[in-house]
């Protein structure tokens, strides 16, 4: 299966950069997935979770509060205002990331359903890591 480069950038630095097999993004009009060789597209993202399937088939989740994505045939760049990656080596690191993610969710003064869905998603993502 083909891979492509994914970059997630925030004003405070790079959250993710590397080769991935697929990525699912929370678009403003609904969730959509991107595989390699996707047609070029630039669109807005809302608060939600980005699911990344990495080269080794491991899945990683990144929570964002708002963003823009620029899809190219061999590269995807996500510009997010705030982002937290749910990952870590140990249990404490993962729970710390989870805390940060929840904090970010609380800061979004938005309607409840999207937040509830996102919060459920990051919880499961964190559990699958443990």
């Amino acid at each position, binding site marked *: 299966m083909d891979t492509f480069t994914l970059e997630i*950038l*925030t*004003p*405070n*630095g*790079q959250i993710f950069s590397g080769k991935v097999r697929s990525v699912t993004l929370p678009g403003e*009009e609904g969730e959509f997935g991107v595989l390699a060789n*996707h*047609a*070029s*597209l*630039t*669109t*807005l993202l809302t608060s939600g979770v980005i699911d990344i399937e990495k080269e080794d088939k491991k899945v990683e989740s990144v929570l964002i509060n*708002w963003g*823009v994505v*620029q*899809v190219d*045939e061999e590269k995807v*760049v996500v*510009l997010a*205002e705030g982002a937290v990656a749910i990952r870590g080596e140990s249990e404490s690191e993962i729970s710390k990331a989870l805390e940060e993610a929840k904090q970010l969710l609380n800061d979004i003064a938005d309607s409840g359903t999207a937040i509830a869905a996102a919060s459920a998603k990051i919880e499961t993502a964190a559990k699958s890591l443990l």
Partner: protein
Amino acid sequence: MANLKDIQRKIKSVSSTQKTTRAMKLVSTAKLRRAEDLAKRSRLYAEKMNQVLAEIAGRIECSKIGGLDDNRFFAPEENPKMIDIIFVTADKGLCGGFNIQTIKATKNLIAKYQEKKVKIRLRGVGKKGIEYFKYNEVELYDEVVGLSSKPDKAKSDEFIQASIEDFKLGKTDAVYIVYNGYKNMITQELHVNKILPIDASDYDCDQTKQKSTLEIEAQDEEHMLNSLVETYAKYNMYYTLIDSVAAEHSARMQAMDTATNNAKEMVKALNVQYNKARQAAITTELIEIISGVESMK
């Protein structure tokens, strides 16, 4: 001849000043490293943001008749009536020409627009600049202290939001930011940035048409553009603050380094003077003794 004690006191005072300036230099070096790191990390984001914005703007410009002309954010300013000038200075002094450079550039910009009979709203960030304009009785529309030494995204968003809103409503015709930015460890670079309206005129239409593009509804692009422009302006403000902090620390580091060196030289010169005075005193005493002995003979 200077009194020995006076010279000694002077030496003591200068060397304690030297200690202070050296400590300040070290503090600035440490802070600079952190600020520089932050600026470096967000520069990547800034570049990408500009790229995305330019691309979308270009796409709308190229694909539609009339293009962006009806979009206020991209219309070039013609005969502006009122403009916003935001200046960013440090909250503290002792950093060489850092603040005064920004103030001078701001004054030049004001003079340039006043000549054209444009009304100016001056919005200030940083205590030093605010103090200067207040002392010179220049009216400030808005002022924030504490933001330039500790950049905070939420506060900076709030500050720039007022300018964006006024621009949107047509109260102002342009928004400028004047600040001193970081170039490298020893140089600062003065920036006068026009944040709004955005200049998208140099976009190449032919290049876009060659790329395969997934077309979404056109309304979507306009809507996207508007929310992007706000983010762009907000982010620019935040980046300005980060860049300014880095520059402030590098300027202070340099100024304190020079001050330390000057103090060192001064101590050296004073020491020579002290030794000379001491020798002169000894010689006088000797002469007194010898001439005393001579007269006893």
